[in-house]
């Protein structure tokens, strides 16, 4: 290598990781600002907070709309996850194993709702839900969230299916397993991880989703993101920081769960 080459490559060896560290810091810091802020003893948003207090967690507890919104987010998120898992798994099975001629087009269609702007879907679903009488109820928002969350399950389950050879199911068939038996005994155990991760991703999507919730929920079914949004536009107090910290903790729990599941899977694969 030329001396310039040497210098350049040594520069790269230092500069690149250094840059990466900066970028990753940029990524993580904002999330971390919230936490100390929620313990502020001030009445307005400051960082760093000059003093510490739990007043905002108290305020949050007293305002009844927060627990209600949290419950709603779960009442919407869990059914969304389940419905997304059901639909997404069916879709993945059909597209990856079905040997259908239009599989590529179907795949593009099934993924689209995740990629297109939620606002368009929202203003489209509003009149539809109105006509169906589902506006402001739980079913309406569950359907809306499923539309945008199902593609995620489709992607993760498809990936799990592509991860092993189709000949396993063919072998099961030659062993006398009908379609349901083959799914139950062979396919599902192999894709179980993809299904669970997809379900968690679907739940997280619903839990964090704002736009559809703005259009499709009412005061009784208001989810957390919507409540945060309304409060944020009304009064910017650190109560929101307290809520945000709790949500952050919960999200991290979910993330840890997913990471654990994936590591467990990998370890299982290594041990045997």
């Amino acid at each position, binding site marked *: 290598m030329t001396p310039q080459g040497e210098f350049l490559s040594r520069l790269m060896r230092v500069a690149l990781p250094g840059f990466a560290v900066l970028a990753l810091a940029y990524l993580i810091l904002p999330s971390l600002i919230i936490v100390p802020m929620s313990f502020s003893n001030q009445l307005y948003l400051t960082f760093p907070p000059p003093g510490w207090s739990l007043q905002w967690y108290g305020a949050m507890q007293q305002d009844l709309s927060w627990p209600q919104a949290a419950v709603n987010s779960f009442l919407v998120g869990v059914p969304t996850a389940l419905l997304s898992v059901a639909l997404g798994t069916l879709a993945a099975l059909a597209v990856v194993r079905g040997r259908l001629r239009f599989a590529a087009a179907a795949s593009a269609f099934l993924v689209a709702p995740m990629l297109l702007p939620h606002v368009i879907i929202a203003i489209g679903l509003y009149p539809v839900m109105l006509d169906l009488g589902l506006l402001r109820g739980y079913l309406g928002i569950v359907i809306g969230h499923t539309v945008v969350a199902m593609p995620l399950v489709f992607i993760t389950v498809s990936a799990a299916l592509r991860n092993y050879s189709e000949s396993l199911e*063919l072998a*099961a068939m*030659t062993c006398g*397993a*009908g379609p349901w038996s083959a799914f139950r005994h062979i396919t599902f155990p192999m894709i179980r991880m993809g299904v669970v991760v997809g379900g968690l991703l679907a739940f997280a999507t619903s839990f964090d989703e704002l736009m559809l919730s703005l259009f499709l929920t009412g005061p009784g079914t208001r989810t957390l993101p919507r409540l945060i949004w309304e409060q944020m536009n009304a009064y910017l107090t650190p109560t929101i920081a307290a809520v945000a910290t709790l949500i952050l903790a919960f999200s991290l729990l979910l993330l840890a769960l997913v990471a654990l599941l994936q590591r467990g899977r990998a370890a299982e694969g290594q041990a045997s």
Partner: protein
Amino acid sequence: MTGAQLAVQGLYKRYGEVQALAPTDLDVAQGEFFALIGPSGSGKSTLLGSIAGFVAPSGGRILVDGADVVSVPPYRRNIGMVFQNYALFPHMSVFDNIAFPLRMRKAASAEIGARVERMLAMVRLQGMGARRSSQLSGGQQQRVALARAAVYDPALLLMDEPLGALDKNLREEMQDEIKQFHRQIGATVLYVTHDQDEAARLSDRIAILDHGRVVQVGAPRELYEKPCNAFVASFLGEANLFAIQGAAPAIRGTALEIGGGIRLSTTRRWPDTANGAAVMACVRPEAIRLTEGTAAAGDNGLEGVIEDVVYSAGLLRYRVRVNDSCQITVRHHPGPAMRTAAIGERVALSWRADDTLLIPKE
């Protein structure tokens, strides 16, 4: 226990414009070990897949013991199948893998236990029931696959290049095991492979496919000694093929022109060919005698220079150049006293007229 009788009638498969399998007829006797061989894309996997039920044929019938199974799903055809990549269920133990077909057919657990143990003994894997497939070697995995395919006494056993993923020594060992296994269970076996050696070692009869068509069916020796065309002749073993110039000779025993002033003599009959298709002379390398010096008198005497010498496991193969357009492969098992001819040496070749086969080009 006897295997099923398999008959394929007019079976064909078309993917749009492409015909993967031309209308095919086959008859496989009960308990026969029948091989399907051919280059890739010859349609052998399509044929096997149709019999298994994974490929929906475009037309034709598949008769197992007289009943047409074309509309029957694979899980009711009562076949066993062994795949090239073994297709063992990774999340199940060896025992559960082999027990799977029995469980699918709702057998009693006592019977399941007994049968699985019997199969494990038969494939010499006793005591390995608790292991996972990832803990087994390739050869062991293939034996589990065999056991699983045969555990419920299927009448028809299909094998799709089962030894393709194994190295050579292991392959030969497994070939012997498969042969023995077949004798023990007595099912009818349909065996797909691209390795003609393997097919010859294992099967009672072979069907050679090319471009979606069955070209010839017969016992290994019959196919080798009486190939029906140049493709079969060169696919099974090696063949020296010469294009014959000029029209068909009027009487037998006439010398055949193959160009370069070389004439070959034969005692064979001119084959019946569809409207003047080309005919080739075919001489097997082991029928040719190689001697020092100049051409001896007698039938089919030629001279040439040795271009290449290969010795492999007791077999000596020479490539001899006779002239610019003619090279001949000679093969024999040298006795310990015989010396290896050197490259560049002038040698004489000869063979009996009877060994010059006449076959159609296509």
